[in-house]
Each structure stands twice: as structure tokens, then as C-alpha cells.
């Protein structure tokens, strides 16, 4: 039986990265993710890796760009305002087809906001973490054990598709402690013939570049990248479903909010309401097909977020008007109370079409 450790989410992120073969970490202090950097500062020298505290988030993400250019596994970590600063570099990394893993332990915004947990960076993560036509793979862990699995997967998939990966956690997931066992599986690094390693007089120089002045050439590079996105959408979508088979009301929630929603769903069942939980694990690609399939059996959806309602747009897109989609959220660093979600479930159950075939 694998050894279990009691770890903070932030520490688990760092340890999982090292076990995934990450040997380069560039960061800048910001609450509530600082334990990632602190753990890396202590742990990296033990594995002959590099921990470097950059002068800014902007510099940190560009150090990631440089290390990733050499084919190394590399990571940076921040929280919401710091992720905004990284967005320029993230766009360049995406356009350079460089693999890397970026951590966002979300805090409340906008602006400096607060340091309490939040899910208000969903749009930024899934719609536009930088200028131009591109996507990141976005993973949303709901617990410390899942963090370790998703970080390992993020490194592997990022290498395979040459698409940067984002772990979208939040202050609650980052700060909570849970028992965790690390997978015995070794990482799956991809061949990287494109990497800058010095041409050794063996090949033509490798060039990593994002400038394409010809619109046709630029369009071609973007279309090629979107073909890779298509295979990610086809093959790498993850979600968890609980009690959805017979559910009249399906609660849709991810990350920390999904843990609270789970309690509310159980409470609803105890009151005789057939409630279930649909938890997206990948936020991009979004598990739209699995969610849409629930329209066959469910009467209403309730999206619960720690924001004013961002993922709810993806829920509505997937449901496409076939069933009502309600929303309940808290923001500003507030966390929904299970009783409030339960009330929202009850209200959604009442609003659901009553006379439809089950």
C-alpha cells in the first residue's frame, strides 16, 4: 500500500510536480499560493532542480518560456492578480507550442480583491488568458488527492499536445490538508525534437518564434493548433457524476464549490428530492456532451459557483435551452453554505417542468 502523507493542497501541487519530473520552478510570492513556492524552494535542491524567485510574475512566466524552450518540464504558480500579469507570456507560450504547467490558486477579485477563495477567474482561464486565438488545458481539482493526479496528467498531456496546462484551484483547495498518496506511475515525457539544445552541428538551428507577418501563414499555424485542440476535446475531457442517473435536479459545480454542493445534494436526497451532482474536472475542454446527455433524464440544472456566474454560461451552452438552468453563487471570497445550496435545489425542483415524462 502506498505511503500516505497529510499535506496542504499547495504542497501537494509542488510535490506532484517534482514527481512528474518538473525540475524548474519560477515564481513570485502571492497569497494564497505561497506554500507552492516555499515547498519548491526547499525541495528543488534535493532533486538537483532549480527554484528561482523572479522579480515579477511577468519575469517568472518568461523564465518558464525560456526553460520550456529547452524541452525541460517547468512550472510556475500564482494567484489571480499574478495570473493576470502572466497573461502576456502565456499567450506567447501558447503561440510557441511550448508545454508547461501553470497554477492558479484563485483568490477573490477584481483588482487586489481579497485573499479568500474564489472561482471568479473561470472566464479568464477558459476564454482568454492572453491575447489571440488560443486555449489552455484547464484542470480543476476538488481535493488534495486529485491535485496530485491532475498535476501529473497536466505535465504529460501538455508535453503530448504541446499546449500549456493550467491547474485552476482556489484558496480553499490550496490551503486545506488531506491525506494523499502519490501515484507510483512514472511520468511520460514526450520526444522534443523542436527543443533548443544547441544544434551541435548535427541539424539546422531550431527556432521558437511567434511572429508570422503573413496572414495566411499565421492563420495556418492557428488552424494547425486548433486541430490539436480538437483531439484534446475528443480525448481528454473529464468529469465526475454522483447520483445523476435518476436526478430531477442536477447541480453543476467544480473545485471547492463542488465539495459543498455534494453535501447539499445528500441533504436534498434525505428530504426526498432526487438531486445529483455533475462535476467538471476539465474546464477546457468542457464536458459538454456528458452534461447535455443528462437532459434526457433531468428536469432542471443548478449551477453553483464562487463567482457571480461564469461557468453557468458553459452549462447553458451544453443544455442549449432544453432544460431550465438556475444559478446560485457567492463571491468576494465568500463560500456558499450547504443550506443555501439546498434551498436553491428545492427552488429549482419546484421550477422544473412537473408534467414531463421521467
Amino acid at each position, binding site marked *: 500500500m502506498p505511503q500516505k502523507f497529510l499535506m496542504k493542497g499547495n504542497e501537494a501541487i509542488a510535490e506532484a510536480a517534482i514527481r512528474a519530473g518538473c525540475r524548474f520552478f519560477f515564481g513570485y510570492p502571492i497569497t494564497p499560493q505561497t506554500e507552492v513556492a516555499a515547498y519548491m524552494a526547499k525541495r528543488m535542491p534535493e532533486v538537483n532542480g532549480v527554484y528561482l524567485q523572479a522579480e515579477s510574475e511577468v*519575469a517568472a512566466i518568461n523564465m518558464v518560456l*525560456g526553460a520550456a524552450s529547452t524541452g525541460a518540464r517547468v512550472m510556475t504558480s500564482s494567484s489571480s492578480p499574478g495570473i493576470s500579469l502572466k497573461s502576456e507570456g502565456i499567450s506567447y507560450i501558447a503561440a510557441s507550442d511550448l508545454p508547461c504547467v501553470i497554477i492558479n490558486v484563485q483568490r477573490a477579485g477584481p483588482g487586489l480583491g481579497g485573499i479568500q477563495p474564489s472561482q471568479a477567474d473561470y472566464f479568464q482561464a477558459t476564454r482568454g488568458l492572453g491575447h489571440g486565438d488560443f486555449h489552455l488545458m484547464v484542470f480543476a481539482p476538488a481535493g488534495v488527492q486529485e491535485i496530485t493526479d491532475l498535476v501529473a496528467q497536466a505535465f504529460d498531456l501538455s508535453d503530448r499536445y504541446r499546449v500549456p496546462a493550467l491547474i485552476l484551484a482556489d484558496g480553499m483547495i490550496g490551503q486545506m490538508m488531506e491525506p494523499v498518496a502519490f501515484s507510483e506511475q512514472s511520468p511520460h515525457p514526450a520526444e522534443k525534437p523542436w527543443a533548443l539544445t544547441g544544434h551541435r*552541428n548535427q541539424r539546422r538551428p531550431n527556432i521558437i*518564434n511567434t*511572429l508570422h507577418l503573413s496572414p495566411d501563414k499565421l492563420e495556418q499555424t492557428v488552424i494547425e493548433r486548433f486541430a490539436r485542440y480538437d483531439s484534446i476535446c475528443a480525448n481528454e475531457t473529464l468529469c465526475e457524476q454522483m447520483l445523476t442517473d435518476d436526478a430531477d435536479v442536477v447541480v453543476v459545480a467544480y473545485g471547492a464549490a463542488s465539495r459543498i454542493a455534494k453535501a447539499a445534494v445528500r441533504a436534498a436526497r434525505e428530504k426526498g428530492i432526487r438531486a445529483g451532482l455533475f462535476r467538471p474536472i476539465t474546464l477546457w475542454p468542457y464536458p459538454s456532451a456528458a452534461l447535455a446527455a443528462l437532459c434526457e433524464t433531468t428536469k432542471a440544472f443548478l449551477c453553483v459557483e464562487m463567482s457571480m456566474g461564469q461557468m453557468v454560461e458553459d452549462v447553458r451552452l451544453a443544455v442549449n435551452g432544453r432544460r431550465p438552468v438556475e444559478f446560485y453563487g457567492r463571491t468576494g471570497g465568500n463560500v456558499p453554505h450547504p443550506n443555501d445550496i439546498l434551498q436553491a435545489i428545492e427552488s429549482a425542483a419546484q421550477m422544473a417542468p412537473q408534467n414531463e415524462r421521467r
Partner: protein
Amino acid sequence: MPEFHRTNGLTEVATHYCPGCTHGVIHRLIGEVLTELDVLSNTIGVVPVGCAVMAYDYFNCDCVQAPHGRAPAVATGVKRALPDATVFTYQGDGDLAAIGTAETVHAATRGENITVIFVNNAIYGMTGGQMAPTTLPGQVTQTTPEGRDVHRAGFPVRMSEMLATLDGAAYIERVSMDSVPHIRTAKKAIRKAFETQLAGKGFSMVEVLSTCPTNWGMSPVDALEWVKEKMIPYYPLGVYKDRTKEGVF
């Protein structure tokens, strides 16, 4: 009679630089030095945003094109991952001394073991001739049509002097492209900067005063004269920091 050959340090791609611009000469000096030091095959170049953005096509080594001003941070990532590689950035004044000031200063103060080639031509060339951080007082540009008024636009930045104050900087020299003797000195400086890196002594930078006949609105010959008459007095040539023997650490 001696023959003049293309250096193996540069590819055969024709550069896009304007006639009379001295970027090409600086490229050649770097190419020659990397070839003479026999490190070309293990060199990674980091190119900027600015006139030299397409230098990845010209240097005959692996290259990455960095976001505007971020070349020293990108080079830091490359060098930390490949400590045995020779890593250099090639940056203009807007890239290095305006939008990328923080990255430049901190790479230097960390003693990052990279070489920075800083091309100072006192103007933004690629975007068509706007004021640069190094534009001289009174100099006319597209965005200082009456000449740079220091009361409104502030003073030019002297990067070599500023970086020389930092403990991490091992070698800082300012050179010029205005004459053949100065070009010879420039090559020696570039060679010394790369040698500093190869010996692991710390951060090295060569600031090269360069021309922009197109955006200065001058003939190439007048532009060389302008470097001599106007730029060198404001940006004196010479070695500003030399800790190449003892190293910075």
C-alpha cells in the same frame, strides 16, 4: 589580397535591415565571435521585439523570440535549464531600457551568467521612429516633434552606468559603430563578454551605439557622424565594469 568571407556565425538569409543601418555589422561581430570561440553549436540566442525581431533567421544557432522586453527573463530560463550552453540576448533600447527595464536590472543583479548585446540607436526603429528611453534631449522623433523636452519627457537612461553599480554585473562596456577603429574595439568587447560567460563569471553586457538613418532622416554617412558628434558625448564609450578576473560571487 585578403578575401572577405561570410562568417559561419550567420546564416545565408539576407537581412531586412534598412540600408546604412549598423545592425548588420553588429550581427556579423557576434557571428564571428561565436565562431572564433567555437561555441556556435551550443549557443541559444534570445531575440527581442523591435527591429531585430527576425534575427532568429540570421544567427546560425538555436533561437527563441521573446516577448517585448522579456529577453533577459527568457534567457534566464534557458540558461538555468542549460547551464553549459552559451546564451545571449540581442535587444534594442526600447526593449531593454523601457519595457524590459525590470528584467534587465534583475538579470544583472542576479549575476545571471548570460551575455546581453544592447543596441542603442536612440529611437524606436521598427514602429517608425518614436522617442526611445535613450533619445537625446532635443532630438526630434515622431513623438517628440519639437525635440525631446526633458521637462515633459524626462531624461535619457544611461544603462551601462546604471548596471555597472550592480554587484551581479561582471562586465559592462559601451562601444560604437561609428568608425572602423570603434568597430574593432566593439568586437573585442563582444568577445570579452562571451568569454566572461564561458568562464562563469556573471552577467555581461555590451552596449553598442548604432545608427538609424531611416528614422533619423539622415544619409548613412551623416548618421555615423551623428553618432560621433551627438551620441558619444552623451553616452561615453568605455569599460564601466570589469570583474572578469575575480567574478561576481
